[in-house]
């Protein structure tokens, strides 16, 4: 599908589109069909619209917690360079990758509400999705834990003589964890077909990237593990697809892992509980609005004659309708049945859990007077 665009061998910033969506002169760009180009646009728009709607809901007190990706949407669609059989190990900030695979708005909203139809049965906080049927792995709150797991998955594919690859997402703050280190090191030693996608959005809650490491970039860290690291403009979807294509090809060919640092910016708060005005200059996110990944892609579509306002309107309406329908539905669905609390601890209930379940069911259902869903 895509033609290799030769990302740089060092950690200088790789980009293909300028802020106006023009292909930089002299670049060889990946081949993106008209249909795919529009689908990617719709995908990013979907993430944006959903984020805005959910955040409003959260502010109205109808949703307990939420995490936004405003300005980072392009990174989610690194997943578009994968085959459906490949695996995605997400962090909490790549819902677009799930949507891309076919995760429905209903599933998404049900998960946020933790209701009886939530694919994870209301067991996790909002934004911790899991979709086994899409090879989209369960999200964990402790950051970085997914990294060695993704390596193990990729390694297992290699052992099983299959050419599946694993894509693991994490933030630049997460590169400081031991999990990052052991995962990267194992991947280097075992040449696991794993792609490490570091979303460098500049912030880990209130800690800016300069305080996270003294290394000259995050991509350079790959050298410590004996494989390539590339640094790409994370708001340039075309460039992301190009480096991903390269990394996927290397992984499938048995050449081992790649670290990709996608440089972007977290324009919103860390989560609905955060207030970034306490720790950063409000002009900084403004600056980054100019480099918005969706606008850039939109202009790129324009250069190819694929964009019209009517198309955007149509997409927005479709998405908004989907959200409204999903919300209307989700708010009707009851919370999970009490007895489900004891399921899935083990494959089968242990006698202890059986007894605890009987005990709990002997009481009327408790309603927390202090809220909670």
């Amino acid at each position, binding site marked *: 599908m895509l033609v290799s665009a030769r990302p740089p061998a060092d950690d200088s910033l790789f980009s293909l589109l300028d802020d106006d969506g023009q292909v930089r002169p002299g670049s060889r760009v990946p081949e993106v069909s008209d249909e795919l180009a529009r689908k990617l646009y719709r995908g990013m728009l979907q993430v944006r619209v959903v984020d805005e709607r959910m955040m409003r809901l959260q502010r109205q007190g109808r949703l307990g917690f939420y995490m936004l990706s405003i300005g980072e949407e392009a990174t989610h669609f690194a997943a578009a360079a994968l085959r459906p059989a490949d695996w995605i190990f997400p962090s909490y900030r790549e819902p677009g990758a799930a949507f891309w695979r076919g995760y429905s708005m209903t599933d998404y909203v049900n998960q946020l509400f933790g209701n009886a139809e939530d694919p994870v049965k209301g067991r996790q906080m909002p934004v911790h999705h899991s979709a086994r049927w899409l090879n989209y792995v369960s999200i964990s709150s402790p950051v970085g834990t997914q990294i060695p797991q993704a390596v193990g998955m990729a390694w297992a594919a290699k052992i099983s003589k299959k050419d599946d690859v694993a894509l693991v997402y994490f933030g630049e703050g997460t590169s400081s964890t031991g999990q990052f280190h052991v995962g990267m090191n194992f991947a280097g030693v075992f040449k696991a077909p794993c792609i490490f996608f570091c979303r460098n959005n500049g912030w880990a809650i209130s800690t800016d990237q300069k305080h996270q490491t003294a290394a000259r970039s995050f991509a350079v860290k790959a050298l410590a593990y004996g494989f390539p690291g590339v640094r790409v403009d994370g708001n340039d979807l075309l460039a992301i697809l190009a480096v991903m294509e390269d990394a996927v090809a290397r992984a499938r060919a048995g050449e081992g892992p790649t670290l990709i640092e996608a440089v972007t910016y977290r324009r919103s708060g860390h989560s609905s509980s955060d207030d970034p005005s306490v720790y950063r200059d409000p002009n900084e996110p403004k600056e980054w609005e100019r480099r918005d990944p969706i606008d850039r892609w939109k202009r790129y579509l324009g250069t190819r004659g694929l964009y019209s306002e009517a198309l955007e309107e149509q997409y927005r309406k479709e998405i908004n309708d989907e959200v409204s329908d999903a919300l209307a539905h989700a708010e009707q669905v009851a919370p999970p049945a009490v007895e489900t609390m004891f399921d899935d601890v*083990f494959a089968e209930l242990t006698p202890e859990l059986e007894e605890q379940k009987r005990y709990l069911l002997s009481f009327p259902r408790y309603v927390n007077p202090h809220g909670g869903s």
Partner: protein
Amino acid sequence: MPVWNIIQAVNDALRIEMRRDPRVVVLGEDVGKFGGVFRATNGLFDEFGPDRVFDTPLAEAGIIGAAIGMALYGLKPVPEIQFADFIYPAFDQIVNELAKFRYRSGGQYPAPVVIRTPYGGGIRGGHYHSQSPEAYFVHTPGLKVVIPSNPYDAKGLLLSAIRGEDPVIFMEPKRIYRAAKGEVPEGDYTVPLGQAKIVREGSQVTVLCYGAMVHTVVEAVEKVAAEGFDPEIVDLRTLLPLDSETVLASVRKTGRAVIAYEAPKTCGYGAELSALICEKALMHLEAPIARVAGFDTPFPYSLENEYMPSPDRVAKAIRDTASF
């Protein structure tokens, strides 16, 4: 039937299962060519090759994290942590990830990983080659915890653990790795998880124990039996799920309980057993429950034999409890 020690029995179980099920892989520090520092994986590398048996870099979080990923992909990894004392760098992967994966994904992502790790004192190993951390794992919902005390059980329990669908912490009592010998059937058999074993029937007092402590208890019981006492010994074999039926039936019969374990006394597994007995069999008790355990200090080196519950200490507890 061959007479084997626990290492041979574990080794045999791994070999049988690796032959039977191509999904089973072994990974850990020094488990390959070297065959493990205790030789439990001896010969596996030669037989199954570098695609089934892996020497990993020195990183326990990496070992367990990667094993989880392998399990999600459909393999059956059996990682080894070289000493239970070095399991803590992987604590997050075990407690927050392995134990919760099935549950947090609504049943979509079970992660059946069996972690083998030698544990316990009595080998002159000091703080970092002697600890008994089983209580942390029993306290973590989603993990099964198995501790065999003899070669027969070691093989049968390990085969059950690997064939099961749940994560298991399989703790091997290294003090008796070579010392505990017994007849082990060749070929395939299993010992189900969650079933305790009555090692000695008796009428007077129930002694609950597991792992290496079973042997200490047997020694103590030989002493006190010669004095006319008649204790019953229960080897728990699986700490979670616990065979509470067997435990309670025995205590109801004898009316007295002594609990022996090597880990520090406070909040150790014995505390749970004691609470269970109080909740379910208090009216049958004719004496206070006694715990004989390690002290609430880090595991020492020179004085390790003073630290560990000795046959003398167990014998004293049996006498005191029986004649209360």
